[in-house]
């Protein structure tokens, strides 16, 4: 089994995440700075009015918005090496630890994709350029989501290992065993 960091690297290769994407992302930093707070406000409004998610953020929405703004700026900061992976992996673990089901971050990611698409569309008139820039943004958003999902998957195995005493390799073997 490749390590999560190796998977991250493989995914970037698979998606052809290249210098061109890095340049595209760096180029839209100003737009993300300008529109990011609105996108963040929008998704926190939804989290706060949904009982299943509101309980996690009660009394700390303003502080969390700040962490979120920092996360969003890292998306367009131009550095996607090991430290980037580590920060995303830690964010995944944070959500796992406090017991947020994985479909909530997935749903928020859907809002982020559309919210940020709208932001780019408001600033970039040329449709080809918009598509090109959004293509790079959606790549990195999806990569972020994959890292979060990997840490959720790893956490599930960890919990089973801890409870049953079964080795990680045994669980992996069972998961990959053919059904017939």
């Amino acid at each position, binding site marked *: 089994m490749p390590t999560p960091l190796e998977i991250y690297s493989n995914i970037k290769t698979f998606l052809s995440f290249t210098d061109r994407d890095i340049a595209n992302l760096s180029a839209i930093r100003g737009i993300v700075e300008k529109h990011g707070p609105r996108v963040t406000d929008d998704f926190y409004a939804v989290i706060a009015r949904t009982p299943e998610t509101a309980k996690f953020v009660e009394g700390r929405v303003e502080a969390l918005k700040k962490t979120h703004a920092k996360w969003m700026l890292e998306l367009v900061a131009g550095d996607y090496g090991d430290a980037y992976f580590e920060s995303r992996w830690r964010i995944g673990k944070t959500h796992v630890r406090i017991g947020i089901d994985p479909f909530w971050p997935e749903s928020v990611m859907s809002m982020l994709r559309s919210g940020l698409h709208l932001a780019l569309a408001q600033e970039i008139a040329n449709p080809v350029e918009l598509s090109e820039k959004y293509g790079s943004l959606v790549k990195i958003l999806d990569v972020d989501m994959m890292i979060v999902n990997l840490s959720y998957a790893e956490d599930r195995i960890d919990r089973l290992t801890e*409870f*049953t*005493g*079964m*080795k990680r*390799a*045994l669980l992996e*073997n*069972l998961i990959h*065993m*053919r059904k017939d």
Partner: protein
Amino acid sequence: MSRVELLNRTLRSLQSGTPDIEACALISDEGLVIASVLPQHIQEARVAGMAATLLSLGTRAANELGRGKLEQVLIRGDAGYAVMSEVGQGVLLLVLTGKDAKLGLIFLDTGRAAAEIRKIL
């Protein structure tokens, strides 16, 4: 003779020396077969996964329920027994018997085989 051959020989003599033993296998705690004397119809990979799972759970349960260090896991069905025990670091011995097997004899013979297996490992 290679270690696998020696292990296979030990398993074969355990099975042929104890008529009640229908099959036996050495399995790693990762659920992989190390050596086996199993009938054709048994799917090795599945049996190995199951035995390793049961032994892990048994070890946890014995500890959790205050029964101390696990010695064996015993399954009794209306067609016979499955007996699992750790015979070395991360290695378990699985033995399948018919329903009329004399368990005392089975334990004695598997204990002897286990000692031999430990020497080979």
